[in-house]
């Protein structure tokens, strides 16, 4: 840079100019453009970093601890408020829970379940909702109105009741939560995808595909779905925290994940029950991870929407 300034009158080389022009002319794809906007969004980028750290924590957190989620330390039990404080020196980084178990490992394991419910739930919603919505939108006519009326009906069933009923009847387990959440999560997605499909299906490239005789399902998979990706990605990111909230709600009530396993909702519930014994760390650690994660997903979803929304361009 300084060299350049020192010789202000030197003509830039022709080749350099040509190179720079070629660079400018090169078109930016939709995704490159979106990436540029997303990277410029500071809140979203910080959220990506923080979220990555939390995911790593939930996956590999137990590696730096010598304890596990269910061993009870009988010396601490019954005396948690004084003897079970968080401490770096004895390796119980987050202290002990009410039953004398190592809280650090329980938070690691709870984070893993909560994140898994969020991500897998959103993934199921994306796959089912996209295929359902794209099919309804592309075929149109009577099939469309029947399929969407069905979605209307399912949507107006108050699903929290049905979910709890399902968990009680079929037995409380994490699998049942996946099933129950998955049953309803795709409905919104299918509506959004259908609306988007309606606007795509009359474009020339779809007409061309129909004209050369590409079968319907192939048009949906190869031509419609890739063009829906932007909307789907944004909505899926915003769906993950919703799934986490639902699972936490159920686990908070004690109807979700069962001992010895745990999740953020169950940990928060334990923390709430014990807070007037002076063991605030029971509430503080899960609360921190819960709130930070939800925040991160919201900021990332917001950033993606700003980056991918064609209305802004």
């Amino acid at each position, binding site marked *: 840079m300084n060299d350049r300034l020192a010789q202000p009158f030197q003509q830039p080389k022709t080749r350099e100019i040509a190179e720079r022009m070629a660079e400018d002319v090169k078109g930016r794809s939709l995704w490159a453009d979106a990436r540029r906007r997303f990277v410029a969004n500071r809140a979203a980028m910080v959220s990506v970093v923080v979220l990555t750290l939390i995911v790593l924590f939930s996956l590999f957190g137990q590696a730096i601890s010598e304890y596990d989620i269910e061993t009870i330390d009988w010396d601490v039990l019954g005396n948690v408020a004084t003897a079970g404080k968080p401490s770096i020196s004895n390796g119980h980084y987050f202290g002990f829970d009410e039953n004398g178990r190592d809280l650090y490992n329980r938070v690691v394991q709870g984070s893993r379940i909560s994140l898994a419910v969020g991500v897998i739930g959103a993934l199921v919603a994306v796959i089912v909702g996209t295929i359902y919505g794209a099919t309804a939108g592309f075929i149109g006519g009577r099939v469309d109105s029947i399929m969407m009326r069905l979605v209307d009906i399912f949507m107006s069933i108050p699903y929290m009741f049905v979910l*709890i009923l399902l968990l009680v009847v079929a*037995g409380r387990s994490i699998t049942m939560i996946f099933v129950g959440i998955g049953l309803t999560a795709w409905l919104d997605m299918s509506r959004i995808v259908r609306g988007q499909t309606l606007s795509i299906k009359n474009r020339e490239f779809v007409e061309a595909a129909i004209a050369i005789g590409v079968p319907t399902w192939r048009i949906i998979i190869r031509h419609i779905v890739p063009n829906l990706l932007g909307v789907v990605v944004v909505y899926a990111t915003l769906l993950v925290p919703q799934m986490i909230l639902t699972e936490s709600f159920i686990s908070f009530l004690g109807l979700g994940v069962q001992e010895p396993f745990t999740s953020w909702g169950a940990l928060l519930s334990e923390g709430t029950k014990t807070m007037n014994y002076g063991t605030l760390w029971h509430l503080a650690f899960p609360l921190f991870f819960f709130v930070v994660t939800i925040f991160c997903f919201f900021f990332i979803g917001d950033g993606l929407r700003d980056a991918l929304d064609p209305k802004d361009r």
Partner: protein
Amino acid sequence: MLNFIIRRVAVAIPTLIILLVASFWLMQTAPGGPFTSERPLPAQVLANIEAKYGLDQPVYKQLWDYVVGIVTQFDFGPSYKYKDRSVNDIIAQGFPVTLTYGIISFLVAIIIGGALGISAAIRQNSWLDYFAVGVTIGAQVLPNFVMAPILILVFTLWLGWLPGGGWNGGQWQHIIMPVIALSTSYMASIARLTRSSMLEVLRSNFIRTARAKGLPDNVIIWRHALKPSLLPVISYLGPAFVGMVTGSFIIDAIFGTGGIGYFYVNSAFNRDYAVMMGLTILLGSMTILFNMVVDILYAWIDPKIRL
């Protein structure tokens, strides 16, 4: 309009039927009959009990009797666990409590949320606007089961101002924290809704005309802009009602207020299927009907969405 009402009702009826049949079916498939216990009853006694509750009838007959009981006598059936208690008793005991803090929460959410959203829109990009947006983002990540413990921690354990739970016949000290915990997320949603609709209204032509006539700002806002910008809040009444009922699961669990949520969660733990089914059908159909009424009301006020 009539067309819209018919179409809306046509969605509500199958929804009600699905809810009814699904809850009934789930209860039928539940492992173990309602009177199975560790010490098995003599076969004759069991047969007598089942005959008393109509459980010896075929399933479709049971379902039909149940529906007839609801429609003709508003009878949601007995509890199989507690002989002296029916679903109707539970409703009579828990519902007034839930309704009390639910309605207060809802009013608080509308008044504060609406005021916040509208003033944020009027002074867009001021500190007030940023404050409102910040509050709405913050409230989104603090659902009621996170708000409630924090409130108890601050106001009961640290400051000692308010009782940490109980209902006490609805004394005001016992209502404050449930209302804050329940209303915050709705307040945030309503603030976000009114802010964006107010911004849209303020940019519309009739407001520009009012400005051109030389009307003062506060007349424009109070007389012309307020009403259309509060319209979307009506469409939010439905979800808010659902939130009130599901929120009461948490509120009753944390504050021990003894509303309908307490009984629902308790029956879930006790596997009192009859009570669960009764409450699911009652609260579920109330939700469906309420949503339907709100939709029709909204279509009546705003003809644009009747399409």
